[in-house]
């Protein structure tokens, strides 16, 4: 029936890692994810896990150690944020191209500069094209649940891709909230034992990993990575179905909130989805047909499914917690509008950049967006689709 607890998002991630009990964890501390390896290292010291904890000297080494561990045939995990992820950059691509199902807890924080330790999604958006599966989490519960599901998705032989579970730095990572944990033995059984097909420490099958890949092969290997990402969609749904059987908690590519008859809608990710739900509820009480779609699976992007959910709206706003600084809109906005165009769904759509560098996103900010959407739904007029909310004038 689950265990009623109260934990911060970082504690929840560390507990999930304890229950998963991976072979190797390699990490370097960085705010706001520091607590995850900190808590985990106490589990190692106390003998609660039999993981090899590698206290590396940098994030580049953390990811390198994970790459080495996975290539050797073991299950490896790490955690980081912002500049830590930036410092991993080279190895992030190595991990995905070597098809190593490493699992990372990414506690989202603004990438410098200027230096800012607070939440936005610029770290995650920087690696959106790196070939990692990317799951986003509204709260501590989802950060925990996503980690429990992570290895089953990443290690599937039709996938074999690394996976990161994102949650909002400080907003959920440092907020104590209620959570329902799963019993240790159930998690262990659900995650299962890692049995890689090809690995370096298999003396019966000597292999090379990561040699030179020239004009004759790299294109095909990139195609295979893209195929794996497409395959991941089916696997993500299968794993979610098993997870629902175990916990009763339902997951998909995205969560639709009061969308059945919605006329105006917001697409967003992570903690802002919770705030948006409370605003949707208050608008519904006033008779406004508002709805929300929260993206859980950002990579692979649910380009086929999303237009079905959004296609009947009269106006749509996509919220990006990272500005792509391209003069043409944020990453989520571009993905959503591209999928709508391809599916021939014509909904007037605007983009809101919000919450940069930890700027608090309030109910009033969300109400402001829905008010603008009511106007767009009525008039069809969009003067400027590239907008900001919560920006000081």
């Amino acid at each position, binding site marked *: 029936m689950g265990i009623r607890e*109260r934990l911060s998002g970082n504690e929840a991630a560390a507990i999930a890692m304890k229950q998963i009990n991976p072979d190797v964890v390699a990490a370097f501390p960085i705010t706001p994810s520091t607590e995850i390896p900190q808590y985990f290292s106490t589990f190692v010291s106390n003998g609660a896990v039999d993981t090899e904890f590698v206290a590396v000297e940098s994030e580049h080494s953390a990811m390198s150690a994970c790459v080495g561990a996975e290539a050797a045939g073991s299950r490896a995990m790490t955690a980081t944020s912002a500049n830590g992820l930036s410092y991993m950059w080279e190895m992030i691509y190595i991990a995905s191209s070597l098809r190593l199902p490493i699992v990372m807890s990414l506690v989202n924080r603004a990438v410098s500069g200027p230096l800012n330790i607070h939440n936005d999604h610029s770290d995650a958006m920087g690696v959106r094209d790196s070939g990692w599966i990317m799951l986003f989490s509204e709260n501590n519960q989802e950060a925990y649940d996503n980690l429990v599901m992570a290895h089953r998705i990443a290690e599937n032989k039709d996938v074999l891709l690394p996976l990161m579970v994102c949650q909002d730095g400080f907003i959920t990572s*440092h907020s*104590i*909230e*209620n959570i329902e944990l799963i019993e240790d033995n159930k998690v262990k059984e659900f995650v299962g034992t890692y049995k890689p097909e090809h690995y370096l420490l298999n003396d019966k099958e000597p292999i090379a990993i990561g040699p030179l890949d020239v004009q004759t092969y790299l294109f095909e290997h990139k195609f295979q990575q893209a195929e794996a990402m497409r395959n991941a969609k089916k696997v993500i749904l299968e794993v979610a179905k098993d997870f629902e059987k175990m916990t009763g908690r339902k997951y998909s590519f995205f969560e639709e909130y009061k969308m059945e008859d919605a006329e105006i809608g917001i697409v967003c990710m992570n*903690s802002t989805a919770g705030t948006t739900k409370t605003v949707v509820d208050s608008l519904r009480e006033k008779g406004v047909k508002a709805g929300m779609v929260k993206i859980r699976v950002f990579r692979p992007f649910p380009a086929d499914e999303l237009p079905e959910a959004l296609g009947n709206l009269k106006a749509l706003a996509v919220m990006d917690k990272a500005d792509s600084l391209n003069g043409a809109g944020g990453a989520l906005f571009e993905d959503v509008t591209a999928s709508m165009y391809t599916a021939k769904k014509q909904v007037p759509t605007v983009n809101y950049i919000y919450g940069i560098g930890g700027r608090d996103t309030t109910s009033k900010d969300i109400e402001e967006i829905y008010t603008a959407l009511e106007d767009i739904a009525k008039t069809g007029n969009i003067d400027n689709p590239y907008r900001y909310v919560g920006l000081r004038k």
Partner: protein
Amino acid sequence: MKDLIEIRWHGRGGQGAKTASLLLADAAFNTGKYIQGFPEYGPERMGAPITAYNRISNEPIRIHSNIYEPDYVVVVDDTLLESVNVTAGLKEDGAIVINTTKSKDEIKKLLPNYNGDIYTIDARKISIEALGKYFPNTPMLAAIVKVSGIMSDENFLQDMKGSFAHKFAKKPEVIEGNMKALELALQEIKKI
């Protein structure tokens, strides 16, 4: 208790306002509530003004933003009354709880635009008496529990005994003093 109670803490770095907010969340959790306890992280240093928050509800809490219209405000250090707008957004039917020895007139003068209830407590005196040291957060925790009526005194004390036993597992000698600080605070908090 109302369906959702929102509390804002004002303290100075090092006084334990964040810890108090987490202990309050813990205590409310143990009575079956849904809770949030989170600090507003800034460039904290010892002595700098800090803010922490609590939401306590009978229903799951989904909102993830700071609290702008609290039901209650706790001021752990009364020098903040001069520099921080502690009553900003505070609901008129709510209350402010202040650690101070100032008189009613002095307090009123410092909160000219606030018409709601004011409670005061001398957390320094209680802390020195019970613990021999100045830790204002323990008495302030008891004060806000009493004023907000989140739980009964008995349930609160019983729960805190368990929390302290866990928190101070390595220095059990301080448990009794902390319990005494809570008990004294429950008695001495007064409306002015």
